[in-house]
């Protein structure tokens, strides 16, 4: 029994009879060959450093870099977020907290029935995987290229809705305000609304 467990020699295994291809291997380096590394480090001294003087010089990120989130708006200023919480459910790190609320005629934040009343992203937990962005049905949630998210207190790293909302652009009105006249939420999603209508103002 114990004899059988003795490891077999390569020639008994017959592995020497197996057809094999000769692979080019790096030849053994001599003394001078092993000294090559010294030249590598020495010559590198005179090369230009690859680094960037960070706080002064900021190298642009890749185009699709996963940075801080942003809650987008429709072209008339209404929020795209409908408070569906799909982002929160998609989040593997449980970093997103959403509370939805029903839109009323007096207080309309987004086209359609619902809007996100509370929206928090905890950047102490967020792993920037982007699953929330994939989950978002209205493209309300996207990511920016902003990466400077360090702070000196834990509470400061829980971003509220106002920290995440996109700024108002040209032609946008600060919600709450009514929807564009004669437009449904479907028109909003089809991109029929190009900018705010004067009648939406001052409500």
């Amino acid at each position, binding site marked *: 029994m114990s004899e059988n467990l003795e*490891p*077999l020699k390569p*020639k008994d295994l017959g592995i020497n009879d197996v057809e094999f291809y000769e692979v080019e291997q790096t030849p053994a380096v001599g003394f001078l060959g092993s000294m090559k590394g*010294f030249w590598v*480090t020495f010559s590198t001294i005179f090369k230009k450093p690859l680094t960037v003087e960070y706080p002064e010089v900021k190298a642009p990120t890749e185009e699709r870099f996963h940075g801080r989130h942003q809650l987008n708006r429709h072209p008339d200023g209404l929020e795209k977020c409908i408070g569906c919480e799909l982002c929160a459910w998609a989040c593997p790190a449980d970093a997103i907290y959403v509370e939805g609320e029903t839109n009323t005629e007096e207080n309309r934040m987004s086209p359609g029935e619902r809007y996100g009343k509370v929206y928090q992203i905890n950047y102490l937990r967020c792993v920037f995987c982007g699953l929330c962005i994939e989950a978002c049905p209205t493209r309300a949630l996207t990511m920016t290229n902003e990466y400077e998210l360090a702070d000196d207190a834990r509470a400061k790293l829980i971003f509220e809705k106002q920290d995440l909302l996109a700024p108002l652009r040209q032609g946008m009105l600060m919600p709450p305000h009514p929807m564009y006249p004669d437009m449904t939420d479907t028109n909003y999603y089809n991109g029929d609304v190009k900018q705010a209508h004067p009648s939406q103002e001052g409500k």
Partner: protein
Amino acid sequence: MTTAQLIGADPGWLIAVKALIVFVLCVVLTLMSVWGERRLVGRMQQRPGPNRVGPFGLIQALADGVKLALKEDIIPTAADKIVFVLAPIISATTCFMSFAVIPITGEVTMFGHKTAMQLTDIPVGVLYILAIASVGVYGIVLAGWSSGSTYPLLGGLRSSAQVISYEIAMGLSLVAVFIYSGSMSTSDIVAAQSSWWYAVVLFPSFAIYVISMVGETNRAPFDLAEAEGELVGGFHTEYSSLKFALFFLAEYVNIIAVSALATTLFLGGYKAPPGLGFTESWLGGWFTAIWFFLKVLSFFFVFVWLRGTLPRLRYDQFMQFGWKVLIPVSILWILVVATLRLLSLQNASKAVVIAFASSIVFIIMAVNIGFESANKKKAQAVADGDNKSLPKFAVPSLPMEVSTINVSQKVGDNRE
């Protein structure tokens, strides 16, 4: 007048001034070398290194030192308090002490006194340095032991084993210098190198010394005592604040000290390189200090270069290299040097010297050829599937062997 006599006439206050100069020099050199090392290693890795504190980041090391000093000083509950405090003090003081016998300049005038920039010149100066270095090992051992923790203990044991074994090779490499210069006094050895540096004449000794000085100072690639990935910080894991700073200081002063010793013993000390002897009288002799520091700094550059290039050795390889290569080679080399020296002292004819030298070369070649053919035979035997010639260790079997034997065996058993 010899340097010993020159220094012997120093008044007490001058000795105090010199001691202060040596101390300040060591500290400033440490700060600068920490900065220089980080900058150089940075450049070797294509990054700039510290460049924010002060011009070119020059006072980065000072800032780090101040930060260290202001940190909380923790003494672990399990530590042996007295020894724990004593260990860094031993480490730091001994490395400063070895600088006392290093001649930094030749004859100079200092505050109206003719003297040399060397704290003291004792007839057994180099032995004194070796002795002090061995006392310095106590700092490491005691630090590791008194911490009352496992990693420091292991790191301390490793460090001390390393330092002790490389000290032997170091001491042996110096013997050839003693034989040739006929003295153990540092200033005499410098004077004896006026025609040829010992780095050239006694090249094997020089090579062994340079290797062992890296081992002696626990520096990369021999920094396995402080292998961060394995032993945390080694013997100084439990140290913080000023006590840690003392170890840090000791490490760098030690590097400077062994470099200074190498300069003194092998590169002609403060003497100018051949052909530039006229510079030795510039600035009333003080210019020699520049040559001295240039040589020391070039050694320091080698330290940094090694660190930037080589990966860390495995512990057993390292010890094997020390005991099985460096020490036997230096012993053989001493025999050769001693014989040659004796022959030349007894005015032996050139023919005898040449015959001796060539027979040595012949023996080395014969041994080398023997080694090579033995290695080839071994390799051939392994290729033929005879692993009896391989060393027997308790090694796990190869995956191939496991799958072919154990699996088939088990399947067969189950069927029956």
